[in-house]
């Protein structure tokens, strides 16, 4: 038993990959699921991409400060709420009705900028001060839990409990043969790919990005080599909250609606994505989010649909069992 487990651990990624591919192939050819399979897979990839966008920030903040930020879900909701407010209460009436898409774009851009500034404000007013007082990461994590609960309820206080729609237009899906894709989903995919590409470029090719990765790797060493760690952390917060808002807006468009708890509901899926990919690895979040997205959608073929988030969380626990460092994380002794 122990030998088998050790062997599975050593070859876990190859093993899990082969099993997952075999299972997907089986779903693709089995008569009962064959017809629905392409569409659910496409949905899963779309959801995974949007989840990746929303969770990259969680990973950035974790990487640079060690904080598991439980209020990240509310940052996602904040993007949705701000866009809704600007779009339905401000710009849509200022512009002629034929230009409501333009209003949505302006509102979304403004919402992302404002959300990003909340990241700056939070790090300036709260997290930076806690770090300066030498308050540990677990204590900070509990602070973020309190903040999450407070923000969730403040948002609910203002927008109520109903489901709201960002975009009231009825749009006809594009028909691509075996799958259909809605225009807002297609736009969301393109925007998220561009944004994820920009994040990758930033992290790999720019000086600031390299500095960010250096801080993630070893803050003390980065500081000793002349990197202004606090500036990098501040920058991570701005990116994290901005990207969370962008991910939220695209999710609200893709799912054709949102509520006060939309971000909170996917918080655990974001954690799952980040943990799966390896805590603190920015590209790990992308890999993890795709796995989570595909698992949660494809599982609806053989499980009750209302259990699809539960299935994804189950996968998280399973992966931690055989590969605690995640898909892309490095193996190290953690306890």
């Amino acid at each position, binding site marked *: 038993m122990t030998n088998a487990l050790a062997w599975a651990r050593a070859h876990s990624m190859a093993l899990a990959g082969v099993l997952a591919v075999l299972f997907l192939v089986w779903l693709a050819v089995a008569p009962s699921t064959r017809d629905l399979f392409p569409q659910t897979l496409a949905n899963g990839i779309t959801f995974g991409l949007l989840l990746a966008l929303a969770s990259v920030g969680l990973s950035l903040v974790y990487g640079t400060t060690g904080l598991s930020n439980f209020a990240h879900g509310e940052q996602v909701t904040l993007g949705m709420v701000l866009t809704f407010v600007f779009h339905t209460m401000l710009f849509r009436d200022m512009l002629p009705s034929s230009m409501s898409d333009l209003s949505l774009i302006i509102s979304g851009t403004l919402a992302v900028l404002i959300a990003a500034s909340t990241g700056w404000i939070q790090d300036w007013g709260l997290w930076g001060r806690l770090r300066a007082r030498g308050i540990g990461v677990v204590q900070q994590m509990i602070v973020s839990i309190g903040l999450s609960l407070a923000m969730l309820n403040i948002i609910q*206080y203002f927008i109520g409990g109903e489901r709201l729609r960002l975009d009231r237009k009825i749009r006809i899906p594009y028909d691509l043969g075996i799958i259909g894709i809605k225009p807002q989903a297609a736009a969301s995919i393109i925007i998220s790919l561009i944004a994820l590409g920009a994040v990758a470029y930033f992290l790999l090719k720019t000086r600031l990005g390299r500095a960010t990765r250096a801080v993630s790797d070893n803050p003390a060493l980065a500081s000793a080599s002349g990197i202004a760690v606090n500036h990098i952390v501040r920058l991570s917060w701005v990116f994290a909250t901005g990207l969370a808002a962008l991910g939220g807006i695209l999710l609200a468009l893709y799912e054709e609606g949102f509520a006060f708890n939309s971000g909170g509901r996917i918080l655990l899926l974001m954690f799952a994505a980040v943990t799966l990919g390896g805590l603190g690895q920015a590209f790990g979040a992308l890999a993890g989010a795709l796995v989570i997205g595909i698992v949660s959608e494809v599982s609806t073929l053989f499980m009750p649909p209302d259990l699809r988030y539960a299935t994804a969380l189950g996968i998280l626990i399973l992966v931690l069992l055989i590969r605690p460092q995640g898909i892309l994380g490095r193996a190290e002794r953690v306890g």
Partner: protein
Amino acid sequence: MDLLIDTLQQLFSPLTAAFAIAAIGLNVHFGLTGLLNMGHAGFMLIGAYGYAIATIQGAPIWLAVIISLAGAGLFALLLGWPTLKLRGDYLAIVTIAAAEMVRLVGRTQALEPWTGASTGITGKEYKEPFEATSPFPERLIPVGPFELHGTASSSWWLTLVSWSVVALLIVLYWLLQRSPWGRVLRGIREDEDAVRSLGKNVYSFKMQALVLGGMIGALGGVSYALGAQVHPDSMGRPTTFLIWTLLLLGGAASVFGPALGSMLFLATQFLVKGVLDVFVPDDIVSAPQAETISLAFVGITLMLLIIFRPQGILGKRRELAING
């Protein structure tokens, strides 16, 4: 005046007792051993489901309680197995995810005949056997300014039983934390490697603490269910965070902290809601909005406590495992 009496009544209500029991369970996890269990509501929910479903299937009370304890114990074993060897924040993420899974499984339509899906299980389906044991008459009984029913639901009988359980658990916790076993757990909280170097099996001790605290959490769930109903959404993440707030307010790692924190905080929360309800007109703050404000108040209290007074009212700062 009514509001004041209701608030005082909240101090010793069965609901407060249920949360005090749950907080004692969390105190075994966090206060004694330093485990970051962020899914305590999941243990409560398993306890509540276990008791309700077993009773509906015809089990006597003692068997139903054992089933709910066994369910929570099994859940703790499953959770602890992959995570107790990992860093603390992994346990936090896995417990919160697992508690969410319990809630989602409880909600699913596929299990509707047992769990009632998203509507839950109403009290009258499972409360009867417990209420049949009540020695009090079946009518409203005034005691001083307070008035409760003798047997039904949140009754004097349930108040008596659940606070007796709280008292027993406080004694149990006091005995445990000064026993050799409890000293090992405190050692793990302070310095895991030191305890390991003394030849103790840290993994096994942590597992025992996780199972014991989880079972106490399940008892809290049973006691909650006897006063209200079993509803998956009433035991989601906010409930876990509420229990953390209660524990940190009273003082983690202290003997009376969990009970004191529950009494003070739940009464204050009730008072906040009541004041908003009575003195602020409905068109400014409606009843559901008063509810959200009182929950935002939980969040803000949690933030302020952990930043400025992490040891709470009764705890000792040096006994706090929070940065271990």
